[in-house]
């Protein structure tokens, strides 16, 4: 019964292709980042970590736009924790040779670290709730509150006068400050990370839905119709 009611729709059919596309684009992005993009005149090869750091930070914020779908929310939150953690670690490694410190109390860094802790709190809240409906409600409410923090992160870039690299891609007016090859490599890296995110997301949503169906089946209840 559970097997027959589990959705075998479009999302399941495209997942293997999404995985292949993610792996291929990730390989291309890695080659471009490590071999094709030129060495920065000031920072040397160290700047290449930007191709991991920037897309990871970008994806760290993505989850908060999908709070209405509980399974997608938990999948995105877990991936958000992974990518935000990756962005913080990669940023720290990048900061040491360029700024001379592993960490600085710059507002955007601090806010990202605070967001990381918020994600962890969100997952902790979910893990302590056993009832699916109540857990979804609590998590959605917390998700909405945490989303309020995202504009603070963005505005801190504009308000703070600090060590952190100014926005290089989405600047108000003017062309991006990067070399064109660096910019292309960064864009490919962002695309690769986005595909990786989508692949992780679809797999995690499927796992979450399957888990719910199994629990409902074990309880002897009629499983609800899944999207």
């Amino acid at each position: 019964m559970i097997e027959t009611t589990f959705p075998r729709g479009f999302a399941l059919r495209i997942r293997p292709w999404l995985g292949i596309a993610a792996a291929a684009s990730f390989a291309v992005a890695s080659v471009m980042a490590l071999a094709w993009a030129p060495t920065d005149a000031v920072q040397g090869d160290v700047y290449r970590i930007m191709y991991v750091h920037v897309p990871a930070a970008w994806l760290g914020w993505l989850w908060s736009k999908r709070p209405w779908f509980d399974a997608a929310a938990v999948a995105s939150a877990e991936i958000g924790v992974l990518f935000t953690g990756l962005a913080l670690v990669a940023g720290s490694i990048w900061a040491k040779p360029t700024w001379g410190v592993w960490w600085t109390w710059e507002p955007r860094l601090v806010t990202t670290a605070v967001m990381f802790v918020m994600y962890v709190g969100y997952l902790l809240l979910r893990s302590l709730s056993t009832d699916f409906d109540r857990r979804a409600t609590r998590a959605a409410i917390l998700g909405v509150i945490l989303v309020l923090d995202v504009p603070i992160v963005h505005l801190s870039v504009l308000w703070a006068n600090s060590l952190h690299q100014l926005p290089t891609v989405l600047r108000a007016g003017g062309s991006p400050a990067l070399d064109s090859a660096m910019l292309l490599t960064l864009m490919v890296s962002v695309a690769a990370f986005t595909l990786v995110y989508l692949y992780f997301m679809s797999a995690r949503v499927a796992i979450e839905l399957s888990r719910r169906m199994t629990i409902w089946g074990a309880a002897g209840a009629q499983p609800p119709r899944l999207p």
Partner: protein
Amino acid sequence: MTGLARVGLVASRELSAERRQPDGAVAAVTFVAVLVLLESLVVGPSRARDATVAAALFWIALAFAAIVVAMRSFDRELDDDALDALVVLPGGRDALFGGKVLALAATLGLVALVGGVLSLVLLDLPLALPVHVVLVVVLGVVALAPVVVVDVVLALRLRARAALVPILALPVLVPQLVSATQGAAAALTGDATAALAWSGILLAFALVYGVVGLTIVPAAIE
């Protein structure tokens, strides 16, 4: 009875319960007082007199005190099975949230008064702009309360909630703590413009989280 009257009723009921059984407020006042005393021992008397350091420790202590008071308040409802009765009343959830926020802000005001006087006396802090200090403290307390009540509601009836509530609340409170600390430090050292600017930000936080809480949190009260 209007919604505002219901909120007032819940708040006054909450405050009279706190007056009869003031364990939450007493614990919060003691906690803040101990932290103020520890401050000069831990960081040294000269650094403790720095307005920013003193203000930061004061607000961190107040944030923890807010969590203690709010958790005790909901524990009292759960112990007496009073929460279910409140929730089923017409508009009960909105009134419960609003009343709890008002009562928490009032109790925190008292805690802040005691902690503030202790800080001023023991640390010999300058008090350049007393009216501005009061303004920052009032707005800071009002900005803390909705977030703390929201997080206590979200963790209601969960195991390990004593650990969960600070983990949920403190990261969300970072902007309020930064603004309140900067505002208080500016008021202590005589920078009226900065104190008023930070007060405005605190007012904005209080409004945003108050409205968000009233809109969505009643759905989470079980």
